[in-house]
C-alpha cells in the first residue's frame, strides 16, 4: 500500500510539473493557434538561469532563503524575456504566412535555443544545487513523500490558483479570454491583440520557468537538452486535456503524470518515454479534441 501511495504522490508531483509547462502550450494555442515548439526550451532556459544564479549566489556565500527567492525571480524574468523575444522574432512576422511557416520557424527556434545554451554553457550534465531543504517535520512520512515533492505540490497549487484569479479578474486576463474566443471580434472591440499575445507568451514562460526551477532542484541535475522531452510530454498533457483549455491542461498533466508513475512503477521503466509518445499518438488519432476540449468545425 505504501508503494502505491508513493507512486501516486510521485505521479502527482510529475503531473504538477507537466502542468506548469503545459499551461504555456495551451494558452498560446488558445490565442494564436500555434504549437509553440520552442516552449520546452523556454523551460530549459528557466532551469539554466536559476542554476546559474543560484550557484553563483551560493559560491558568494548568500543564505539559502535569499538564493531561492532571487533564483526563482531571475528564472521567471529571463524566461519571460526569452518567450517574449521568441514571439516577436519567430512568430509575429509570420502571422499571415502559409500555415507551415510558423511551425517550421518554431522548430528552428527550438533547435537554435538548445544549441545556444549548449555553446554558451556546456553539453555536460550539471549538478543543480539543492534549493529545497529536507524539512524535519516530514521525517515520519519521508519514505513515501520527499520534502521537495511537497514543495512542488504546494507551489503548483498556489500558482494555479493565482493564474485562475489573474485570468478571471484582471483586465489583461479578460482580454486574453476574449482574444482566445474570437480574435477578429477582440480587435473590433478595441483590444490590443499584439499586447495580449505578448502577455500570453510572458505568462506562459514564467510558469515554465517555475516548473524548470522546481524540477531541476527535485532531480538534481540539468542539461541543455532537457527541454525536448519535457516539452513533448507537457504538450501531450495539453492535448490529452484538450488543447486551448486551461483546466484541461491541468487535468491532462495529472493524468499523464499518474499513468507514467504507475506504468514505470508496476511495469517497466525502460519504455517510459515510448509510453508518453504512444499515448500522444493515440490521443491525437482517436480523440484529438482531448478530455475537456470541444471539437470544432472549421468555417469554410
Amino acid at each position, binding site marked *: 500500500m505504501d508503494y502505491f501511495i508513493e507512486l501516486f504522490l510521485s505521479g502527482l508531483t510529475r503531473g504538477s510539473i507537466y502542468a506548469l509547462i503545459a499551461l504555456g502550450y495551451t494558452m498560446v494555442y488558445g490565442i494564436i493557434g*500555434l*504549437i509553440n515548439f520552442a516552449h520546452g526550451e523556454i523551460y530549459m*532556459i528557466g532551469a*539554466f*538561469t536559476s*542554476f*546559474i544564479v543560484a*550557484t*553563483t549566489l551560493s*559560491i558568494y556565500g548568500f543564505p539559502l532563503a535569499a538564493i531561492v527567492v532571487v533564483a526563482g525571480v*531571475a528564472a521567471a524574468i*529571463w524566461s519571460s*524575456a*526569452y518567450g517574449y*523575444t521568441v514571439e516577436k*522574432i*519567430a512568430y509575429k*512576422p*509570420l502571422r499571415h*504566412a*502559409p*500555415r*507551415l*511557416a*510558423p*511551425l*517550421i*520557424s518554431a*522548430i*528552428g*527556434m527550438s*533547435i*537554435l*535555443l*538548445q*544549441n*545556444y*545554451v549548449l*555553446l*554558451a*554553457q556546456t553539453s555536460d550534465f*550539471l*549538478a*543543480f544545487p539543492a534549493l529545497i531543504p529536507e524539512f524535519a517535520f516530514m521525517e515520519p512520512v519521508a519514505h513515501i513523500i520527499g520534502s521537495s515533492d511537497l514543495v512542488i505540490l504546494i507551489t503548483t497549487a498556489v500558482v494555479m490558483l493565482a493564474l485562475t484569479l489573474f485570468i478571471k479578474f484582471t483586465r489583461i486576463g479578460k482580454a486574453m479570454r476574449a482574444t482566445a474566443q474570437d480574435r477578429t471580434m477582440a480587435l473590433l472591440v478595441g483590444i490590443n491583440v499584439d499586447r495580449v499575445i505578448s502577455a500570453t507568451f510572458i505568462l506562459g514562460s514564467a510558469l515554465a520557468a517555475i516548473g524548470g526551477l522546481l524540477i531541476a532542484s527535485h532531480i538534481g541535475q540539468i542539461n541543455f537538452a532537457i527541454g*525536448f522531452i519535457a516539452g*513533448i510530454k507537457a*504538450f501531450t498533457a495539453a*492535448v490529452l486535456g484538450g488543447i486551448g483549455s486551461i483546466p484541461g491542461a491541468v487535468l491532462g498533466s495529472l493524468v499523464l503524470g499518474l499513468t507514467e508513475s504507475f506504468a514505470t512503477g508496476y511495469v517497466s521503466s*525502460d*519504455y517510459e*518515454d*515510448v509510453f508518453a*509518445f*504512444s499515448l*500522444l*499518438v493515440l490521443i*491525437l*488519432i482517436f480523440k*484529438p479534441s482531448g478530455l475537456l476540449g470541444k471539437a470544432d468545425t472549421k468555417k*469554410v
Partner: protein
Amino acid sequence: MMMTVKEIKKSLLVSLWFVFLTFPIMVIKVNPIERTVTWRWSNVLYVAVGSFVISLLAKAWLVRKARAAGRQQAACQARASILQELLHRPGYRYPLIIMFSGLALAFPHLFSTYQANIMTTALMYIVLGLGLNIVVGVAGLLDLGYVAFYAIGAYSYALLNLNFHLGFWAALPIGGLLAALFGLLLGFPVLRLRGDYLAIVTLGFGEIIRLVLENWNAFSKGPSGISNIPRPGFFGLEMSLDHAMIYMYYLMIGLVLLTVFVVNRLQHSRLGRAWLALREDEIACQAMGIDKTRIKLTAFALGAFWAGLVGVIFAAKTTFVNPASFTFLESAIILAIVVLGGMGSIVGVICSALILTLLPEYLRALSEYRMLAFGAILVAMMIFKPEGLIAAVRRTYRFHERKSVAALQDDE
C-alpha cells in the same frame, strides 16, 4: 542602403535588449564542483555588436522586400534563378549537364578518397532532401520523423544481414520498400490530422522508433548497435577500402541521378499537381474531387522510400549502425535542407544539401556552430525568404496550335 537615425536608434535598443537577454547564459559560467564563477565580459561586446548589425540588416532586407513587392504588385510570380535559366536555354542545357557530370565522375580521381567519402555523405543528404521534399515541399505535410524511415532502412539491412546473411543488393530494395510500408502504416491513421498535429505525431513516431531500437536489446542489440555490416559487393570482387569508398561514391551518384529523374517526373505529373494543390488548399482540393488521404499517403510512402534506400546505403557505408545516428536532429537537418533550398525545388534542394553538408566539413571552425546555424536557417528562411534560395518555378505548357496540340515542356 539608406538608414535613418530612427532605425539606428531602434537597432541600438534591440542590441541593448539582447545584452540583457543573453546576460546570465552568455556572461556567467559557473563550475558547481570547483565552486568557481567566470565572468565572460567580452561576450557582452560580441552580443551587442552582433545583434546591432543583424537588426540593421534584417530591417534593410524587409524594407527592400516591401518595396519590391510594392513595385511589382504581384510579388508571388516566382522568377527563375540563373541556374534554372541556363538549364532551360537549349544552347546551354546540355553543355552544362555534361560539365557537371564530368566533374562528378572525375571527382574521386581529382581529389583524395577522403574527399570522395565526404562527397558521398553529401550525396546521401541530397537524396534524403529530395525524398523529404516530396512530403514537405511538394505535398506540404510537415514530417518531423523522417529520420525514422532512414533508421528503418539502415536497420533492415543490418538485421537482414545479421540474421539471414542477405547481401547489399538484395537488402537495398527491401529497405526502401519496408520504409515505404511503414510510411503507409503510420500515414493511414495519422494523415487525417491537421498539419500541426501531424508534425507532432511524426516527431513522436520518430522518437518511438529510436527508443525501441535503443531498448529492445534482443531485436536490435540496443544502444551498442550492430557492427561488421558488409560493404556492397561488385560481382563478388574483393575491393580495397579505397576502392570500396570510390565504389560507394559512384553508387550514390547513380542513386542521385535516379532520384532526380523520378522525383522530377512525379512532380510534373497528375499526382504532382495534386500534391501541390493539396499544399495550397486542402478543402478546395477535396472539392475538386481529389481523394486527399490517398494523395497524402502516396506522398508519405514515396518520401519514406528514398529514406529507406539511403538508410541501407548508410549502413553499408559505415558498416555499423546504432540508434544514436537517428535522433530528431537528423530530421531537423534534412528539413533545413528542404527549407533552405526552396520547397518543391529540385535544383534548390540539391544546392542546399551540398552547402549544408560540405560547408561544416570544410570549415572546421564552423562545424561547432552547425546545429545553431540549422536552427537559425529555419527561422530566418521563413521570415526573409520563404520560397528558398532557388524557388520552384511553375511549369508552363506551350500550345503549338491554338486549342489542338499542346506540347510538354519541362522545368528543372
